[in-house]
């Protein structure tokens, strides 16, 4: 009995490793190795031409004591992350529900909502800059129709981040697609049984749909937070981090440090501090979600 059992476990383990093998290679070679390299670099001064020079904790010391700009950028990043992600996931779910209905023409609607994901990002950003134009842009003109004087949007330190959050809501096509796929997997009979029991739509939504697609909700939330924490292109191209550094995000700082300022060691240290802050946050999310998921 003992022998059979360990053979079974060995076979189990083997299968697990075999299936995961491509990723074990990919993870260690293309992901972990560079990541550990940056960890090493964070303790060095590296101008990217000559060999890195060990300086111990100096980069971290500077980051914590001499760089108020980093903490401001961190604040901006969190504002953007939490301001956009939950809104996006929620709206994405609502739209996915609407789009999964069996009405005619949904195909066209689904394509329309997916469009933003497909269009090349730079022209789209310029379009948004035009739409946010305080005087002649579409958004303030529409607000004007209902009697509201729109703010300066991207030109205002207070409204620049809300503007970018609004812009990000436009790009929820990817989230919708994933929700659509997830909604497919909810077994039909659950709804039928609930209907027979006299449940209404709202109850069915909360009691059946949401729990069944929890893994997908979780996925969209986590990947949404990760993507939002790395927001960069919009601030680089549309606002150059301004006005008054209101859209300077951590990733923008890191890019400028690594590519413009040639302070790769310091940029690495900043990335790791960011990592150390984000990971515990997500672990917390994992813990909370465990109570909700069932697997």
């Amino acid at each position, binding site marked *: 009995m003992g022998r059979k059992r360990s053979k079974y476990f060995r076979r189990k383990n083997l299968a697990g490793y075999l299936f995961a093998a491509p990723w074990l290679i990919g993870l260690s070679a293309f992901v972990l190795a560079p990541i550990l390299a940056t960890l090493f670099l964070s303790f060095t001064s590296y101008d990217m*031409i000559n060999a890195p020079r060990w300086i111990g904790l100096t980069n971290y010391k*500077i980051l914590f004591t001499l760089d108020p700009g980093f903490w401001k950028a961190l604040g901006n990043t969190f504002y953007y992350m939490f301001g956009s992600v939950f809104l996006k996931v929620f709206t994405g779910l609502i739209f996915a529900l609407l789009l999964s209905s069996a009405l005619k023409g949904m195909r066209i609607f689904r394509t329309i909502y997916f469009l933003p994901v497909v269009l090349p990002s730079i022209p789209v950003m310029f379009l948004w800059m035009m739409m946010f134009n305080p005087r002649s842009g579409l958004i303030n003109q529409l607000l004007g129709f209902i009697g509201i004087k729109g703010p300066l949007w991207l030109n205002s330190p207070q409204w620049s981040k809300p503007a970018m959050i609004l812009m990000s809501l436009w790009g929820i096509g990817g989230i919708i697609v994933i929700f659509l796929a997830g909604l497919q997997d909810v077994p039909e009979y659950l709804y039928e049984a609930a209907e027979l029991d006299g449940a209404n739509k709202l109850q069915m939504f909360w009691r059946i749909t949401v729990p069944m697609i929890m893994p997908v909700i979780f996925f969209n939330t986590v990947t949404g937070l990760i993507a939002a924490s790395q927001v960069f292109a919009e601030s680089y191209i549309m606002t150059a981090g301004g006005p008054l550094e209101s859209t300077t995000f951590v990733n923008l700082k890191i890019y400028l440090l690594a590519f*413009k300022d040639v302070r790769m060691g310091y940029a690495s240290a900043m990335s790791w501090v960011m990592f150390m802050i984000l990971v515990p946050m997500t672990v917390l999310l994992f813990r909370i979600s465990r109570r909700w998921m069932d697997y």
Partner: protein
Amino acid sequence: MHHWHRTYSGEGLKVKKSLLILFLITLMVAVSFGAAAKVKFWHMYLSGPSKEIMDEIIAEFNETNKGAIEVEDLAISFWDYWDKIRVSMAAKQEPDVFLHDLGNVGMRASTGILLDLKPYLLAAGFDPEEVFFEGPLKMCSYEDGIYALPLETDVRLLFYNKDLFRQAGLDPEKPPTTWEELLYYAEKLNVLDKNGDYEVVGFNPLYGQSYFWMYVWGKGEDFITEDGDIVVNSPGIIQALEEWVALINELGLEKLLSFGANFGWGAADAFIAGKVAMGIQVGNFIADLAMYAPDLDYGIVQIPYPVQNATWSNGFSLELSSRSKNIFAAVEFALYLLSDEVQLKLAEGISSLIGNRRAAYQSDLIEDPQWKMQIEALEFTKFRPFILEAPLWYETLQVATEEAIYGTKTPDRALNDAQKLIEAEIQKYKMTH
């Protein structure tokens, strides 16, 4: 081989000599049969007339040096160029000759990746001070060497709308030359609508390439002390910022911002749309005017100054890798690109200015008064000083300027804070280097 050893002295020397001749003949034969030294050259001339000219220039060079040197070029779009060259340098894969930012040559020179061109220039009979403009050449120098060549550069000038001048009763052939004249004319050129908002702004200090540091230089101040340290909060500079802020406040910040919000770029540019009477722009703006408003009657003049003539430039440098395997060939090519003939050719194709002063004055383009004015500006132009320990100091200055303009800080507080930030950057650099 051992024959040679045995017949070492006396006859050996004769053998040695004949071996040498044999070697040289073999070398010449090998060279002429295509063992050409390859020179990799990266640049940004991806399309349009500048691409055609560059292709021609390279083809001519390859033809003249057939068998000995072959230049392989790669054109990358401007926005992507910097990332591509940065990563290739990090991986020791950079090309032999490449364009880069004239504004921060020192950053690369200090790492040792650039070849010091001074000895080669002198050996080739190029006296850099005679051949190149002073401002750009200074940006190419680092410590005692010259680590780059000024390939192309630009200047800023004051563009003014002649029609608006006439409408305001001003003589379109007599544009302002001093700062006081500029402000006087500006007031006359302002046109307000019935709400008191700007219809036309005479001179908009927030428009185009108008930046605070240009005013600082115009007042005869500088950002570098005699010791070579960076200073942004000297009394002169604080005074300048106070005046700059006062000017904007007199025009009305809110009104200027909401005015500016109406416009964008291309055909929607404020000057091109005829809504800014006098604005500071870079020389390439002439091409924009030709494309979007060919009928606009405009003139250009050197930027009016309070104390001394000032304008500023950016540009592209030509740099060589010190790790190149074909240094002599690369130097040949670089000197060729900066030679009078080639620079004359380049001047026709690119929309910017060239770095070779001799060529600039010899060119037919000097007949064109607009071009001539730009060349004259190049004689006294300034570049933002490059500070190795705080290369982005001017961005800190710009933020301080904005804070003073928006009123969140007084000018002296904003500049003092900026100075502290810059010094902190320098200290950080020293801690890690």
